[in-house]
């Protein structure tokens, strides 16, 4: 059981009457090298690392290696219950969680690249915040992870998830599309609604550049993960409400890739343009690298 695009994935789901998560699981078992138990064990380990990652920096905030971030997730988490919090629980928590994972990553802790280290906060942030507010079981979260991996796989296969190749839209954009689709399935949406959510998520972040200050996975990466989370939740909500994206997922993936390819070199992880190229970005870069 294999698929090579959003369209062929939908066809398999339709023919077999299965959700995206189950098609992805069966693809792994029939076409890959892992058996059912190994897939389950690995998913368990992924979820364990993600759960630890979203909580650890809320208890013990640590400065990052480059010193640009550390402690932001706790500030957001502590703000959740305050009167001037404007987000509501699920968004506020998802933001805090996603930023926490970036802090773990930037302080040489253990993370799951999903699909990359720079975008590793989005998927755990969204999934675990939705779990908190909806009281979901780990079983449902595994379905979310599988669903997300199907979207990520198509993007890796047919477009790119590399910031150096296609900008942040390919990293946080992909992570956001993966998370949006996962939430739709977790909430009982159809495969078609999942792909619509993923398509909207990509389209909303189209063109986002990769411009890490000092070349480090710290800022603006951390707040980009927060925005990836907000985008994912928004797009899932649209799809679950019955709002359909007019552009099919596969076309949007290709558009994202083309936009990425046309981004100038300075805006693809070279730390030369965007935030990194501002006077302050340059100064911070020099301070950190000791030049």
């Amino acid at each position, binding site marked *: 059981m294999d698929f090579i695009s959003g369209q062929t994935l939908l066809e398999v789901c339709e023919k077999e009457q299965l959700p995206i998560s189950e098609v*992805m*699981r069966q693809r*792994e078992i029939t*076409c*890959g*090298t*892992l058996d059912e138990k190994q*897939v389950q064990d*690995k*998913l368990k*380990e*992924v979820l364990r*690392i993600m759960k630890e990652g979203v909580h650890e920096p809320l208890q013990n905030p640590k400065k*990052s*290696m*480059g010193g640009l971030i550390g402690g932001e997730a706790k500030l957001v988490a502590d703000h959740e219950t305050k009167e001037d919090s404007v987000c509501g629980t699920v968004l506020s928590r998802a933001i805090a969680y996603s930023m926490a994972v970036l802090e*773990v*990553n*930037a*302080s*040489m*802790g*253990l*993370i*799951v*690249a*999903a*699909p*990359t*280290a*720079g975008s*590793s906060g989005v*998927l755990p942030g969204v999934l675990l915040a939705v779990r908190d507010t909806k009281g979901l079981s780990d079983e449902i979260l595994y379905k979310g*992870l*599988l669903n*997300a*991996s199907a979207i*990520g*796989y198509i993007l*890796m*296969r047919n477009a790119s998830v*590399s910031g*150096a190749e296609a900008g942040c839209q390919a990293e946080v954009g992909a992570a956001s599309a*993966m998370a949006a689709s996962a939430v739709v399935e977790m909430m009982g949406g159809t495969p078609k609604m999942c792909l619509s959510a993923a398509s909207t998520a990509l389209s909303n972040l189209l063109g986002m550049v990769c411009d890490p200050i*000092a*070349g*480090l*996975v*710290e800022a603006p990466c951390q707040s980009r993960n927060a925005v990836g989370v907000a985008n994912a939740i928004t797009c899932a909500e649209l799809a679950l409400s019955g709002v359909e994206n007019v552009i099919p997922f596969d076309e949007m993936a290709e558009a994202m890739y083309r936009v990425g390819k046309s981004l100038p070199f300075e805006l693809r992880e070279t730390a030369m343009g965007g935030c990194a190229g501002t006077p302050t970005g340059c100064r911070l870069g020099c301070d*950190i*690298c*000791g030049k």
Partner: protein
Amino acid sequence: MNFLSIFDVIGPNMIGPSSSHTAGACSMALLARKMCPEPVKKVVFTLYGSFSKTYHGHGTDRALLGGMLGFETDDARIRDAFDWAKKMGVEYEYVIDEKTVTDHPNTADMEITGVNGHHLSVRGESIGGGKIKIVRINGIDVEFTGEYSTLIVRQIDKPGVVAHITQCLSKNDVNIAFMRLFREDKGATAFTVVESDEKIPEEILDQIRENNNVQDLMLVQM
């Protein structure tokens, strides 16, 4: 196209912050360590290109050392690699070379000295997403990834050596995925690199050594 697994998308599980500058650095050093026939006593890392500029913020120095100590890319000890090296009695040194231009921006040289004096020099490239290549051994350009079981033969470039190697492989029923010969000059030192999808039996090493032109062997199992 290689099969993309669920865990290629949601993975690898890795110590941050960067798949290329941290996980890749760790992987190349781990592979170099496996190529050394005796425990590592001392290592000198030379960092080039982007590695030389951003190593501190990416923990590239710690990741290289962690790999040399035998840590996998998801081992939390990488962060404290300097302390672990002291505990494990491994000496280390870094040379930051921002001038030399290398083929790939994420490149490091590893000069390894073993506890019994064995010397090995390995150049690695971190080519993105945590993937790596070894591109030089003891000054000779080679190319392999460590994703397969890899047999590396150092030999004198004379007729019959490669035939002898393939004969030994065939006798032991090893299916070759890739095989390449690298040499600097005719009649000088050459390397044969054989990659296989399965484990390569250790017995094969003694058989290959029987040829007088074979100087050294390295076997890295997947």
